[in-house]
């Protein structure tokens, strides 16, 4: 086929394109992924029986905001990585600042605690399962985000996969808080972050395999 003929055939039957389509798909993926993640948490892991009581504690909201801020920043990066030629902007810096801020907060909490309490602040009761459960809860969100990413045009596939994984991990962690009984900063700073990094690594591995176009 001659290139000029291709141009003719592409342009003859062109229809108006809805430029809000990518945003709608992203929101649908986020909402759908988070809903399934919630059902998974509530059905498989059960809600924390103390949840209503803990809502009144400031640390509960520190934990929620930490996950929500990381999820939002990750999502900004995801949306941009799906468009050819977009700049990443402030998202990576923002994520680094949020993570470091939580480490500083965790270090201050540990420094203020008596030495015999420190191990408990770090490990809580659930450190050995927390990262894996977060990764499990994040899975439906990761699948949904990669699905939408495939319909768009990422050009840095490994980064696009990693950002999808990190966003899924953060949203998974946010959903997981309805089950998780831990409210100590050192615990989130370590185990929540690890939980987010598992889907990030999976996403980085899947990116070049699933997202080619």
């Amino acid at each position, binding site marked *: 086929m001659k290139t000029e003929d*291709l141009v003719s055939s592409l342009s003859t039957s062109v229809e108006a*394109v809805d*430029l809000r389509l990518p945003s709608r798909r992203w929101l649908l993926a986020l909402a759908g992924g988070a809903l399934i993640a919630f059902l998974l948490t509530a059905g498989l892991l059960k809600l924390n029986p103390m949840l209503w009581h803990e809502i009144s504690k400031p640390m509960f909201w520190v934990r929620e905001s930490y996950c929500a801020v990381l999820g939002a920043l990750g999502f900004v990066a995801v949306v941009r990585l799906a468009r050819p030629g977009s700049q990443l902007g402030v998202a990576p810096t923002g994520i680094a600042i949020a993570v470091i801020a939580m480490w500083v907060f965790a270090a201050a909490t540990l420094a203020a605690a008596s030495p015999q309490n420190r191990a408990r602040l770090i490990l809580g009761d659930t450190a050995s399962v927390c990262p894996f459960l977060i990764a499990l809860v994040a899975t439906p969100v990761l699948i949904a985000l990669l699905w939408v990413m495939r319909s768009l045009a990422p050009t840095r596939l490994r980064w696009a996969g990693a950002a999808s994984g990190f966003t899924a991990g953060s949203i998974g962690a946010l959903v997981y808080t309805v089950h998780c009984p831990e409210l100590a900063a050192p615990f989130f700073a370590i185990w929540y972050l690890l939980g987010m990094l598992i889907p990030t690594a999976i996403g980085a591995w899947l990116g070049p395999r699933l997202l080619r176009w």
Partner: protein
Amino acid sequence: MGWLVGQLHGGQAPSGDDTNSPSSAQYQKVQMQLIEEHLRGLILQSLAGDAAAYRIFLDELMTHLRSYLRRRLSGLPDELEDLVQELLLAVHNKRHTYDPKQPLTAWVQAIARYKLVDLLRRRSRGDVLTDPLDEDDQVFATTANDAAEAQYDVAKLLRGLPDRQRLPILYVKIEGASVTDTAVRTGMSKSAVKVGIHRGLKALADRIRSIG
């Protein structure tokens, strides 16, 4: 001439020695800007469903892509036309990912680079690459030599346009006046000002291409 280039690039005062003719780099920037505005206007019309605009857009894109790929794939003339077609198809199939707030040239550049790297990886052959891919090489860069560029600065290009195109471009695009003010200053209607800008930029782009 320096003031003109300055106006187009953030309004910085020109340095003393480029008041007579812009440097090659500045010239290329102005040229890029003209191509950007022209193609961006076309794709926005195309995305709204205008088939005629889309045809012009693809046609012009084809020319840019061909000369870009000719530089990149000089050892493989057979691959060239295939890849031009693949790129046009990619742009077509992924046109819903263009964000109107983003430069069109950056969007196309990223797609072209992605597809080219993909081709080179698929072939996994060293001889495909005539020289390493670097960030400086761009789809919309010109191949004109410096001497030719120096002769054709923006003022000269603009001088070649009829007043009904030259004045709207000068006032709106270079001085930054509004369409309404320009209509008052030139005694033209607002739509005539817009049409003048559009046709003038297209004529400039054609002229620049014939130089390149």
